[in-house]
């Protein structure tokens, strides 16, 4: 069986070599970043999951005997941690996707009609300050998620989550308004 550099490094690391272990983990993190980019959509969470995997590798290093190839062993741990993350992620009710398309038609209405516009504006104004600013910047002023995240000093995923929550709230309020009319 052909031994890779990674196999050699973990062997040295298991013998207590600090430098080899550091190199091993650095190399592993490069491999895992590429792997996680395909598996995890939320870019901010990727680094957290990567750290979780590195910690798990550290805790489980006594289960590696230095004989069999190390990469399948690493990927088994990575898979396990990614599945753990995804399980928690999909369980969170907050992460339910509220599709902007469902309320897009309202935004596409004739905004020059002062009645419609003032109606919409008054609903948007009822949102919490931060959410209101995000909706204004993204949907009225036309900024991208990245630009909004830079301007507000928040992560891109936090902006997306906040925007989704706002749309959900707007949808509820618009439906309530329609039913009253």
């Amino acid at each position: 069986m052909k031994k890779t550099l990674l196999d050699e490094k973990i062997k040295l690391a298991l013998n207590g070599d600090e430098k080899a272990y550091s190199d091993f983990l650095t190399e592993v993190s490069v491999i895992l970043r590429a792997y996680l980019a395909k598996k995890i959509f939320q870019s901010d969470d990727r680094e957290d999951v990567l750290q979780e995997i590195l910690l798990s590798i550290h805790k489980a290093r006594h289960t590696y005997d230095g004989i069999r190839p190390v990469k399948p062993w690493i990927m088994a741990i990575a898979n396990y941690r990614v599945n753990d993350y995804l399980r928690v992620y999909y369980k969170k009710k907050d992460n339910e996707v509220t599709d902007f398309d469902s309320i897009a038609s309202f935004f596409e209405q004739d905004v020059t009609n002062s009645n419609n516009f003032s109606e919409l504006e008054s609903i948007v104004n009822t949102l919490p300050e931060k959410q209101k600013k995000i909706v204004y910047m993204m949907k009225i002023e036309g900024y991208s998620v990245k630009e909004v995240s830079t301007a507000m000093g928040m992560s891109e995923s936090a902006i997306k989550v906040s925007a989704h929550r706002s749309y959900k709230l707007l949808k509820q309020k618009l439906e309530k308004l329609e039913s009253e009319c």
Partner: protein
Amino acid sequence: MVETEDLIKKLSKENKKVKCLSPKSILWKIILVFSLIIIALLMTISRSDLNDIVTMPMMLAELLFALATGLLSAVAASWLSTPDVKQQKWVVWLPFIPFSLLCILVIHNIIMIPMELLNSGDDSIHCITITYSLALIPAIALIILLKLNANTHSTLFSVMSVMSVAAFSYFCSRLICYKDNIEHLLIWHYIPVLLLAIVAAIIGSKLLRWK
């Protein structure tokens, strides 16, 4: 949040020479526990007609299949206690061979041997007590030993551990109980072991999960 590079530095500093805990060494310890219990049983409370078992091929086969299921499930559980199953996933299928044979034998016994009216007055509750008591020590030993490792297939891992303990306790209870009639075995041996296995597998998948 800690930067990944800082975490790597921290983990590297913590790194010391690691002694590998191989699944084989765990397996030998499990076999040792199993053997000690069997020897203790044979020397103390085993049935008096043990020598006659050799003349009963069906029962001999039943005992052998149960023991093989217990041991091979312990092998599979030990292998499953490593994240990559020692890169030998085929080991997981091994216990299903004697287990299937044991199931066929049990079903054959139930169908082929005429079952008389169930003797409700037959107080054999001690068979359940023996079966459950015998499961306790290997179960604790198995949990302690296997929790030292890191499993990434918690459901399969718990099923194998439970199968190992259940088959072993079934094997031991057959060495103790002298009643071989099918209705007794069905009610006081098969069903309790099956119930134990189902409950333990549900609890085990959570208890044995690697955090």
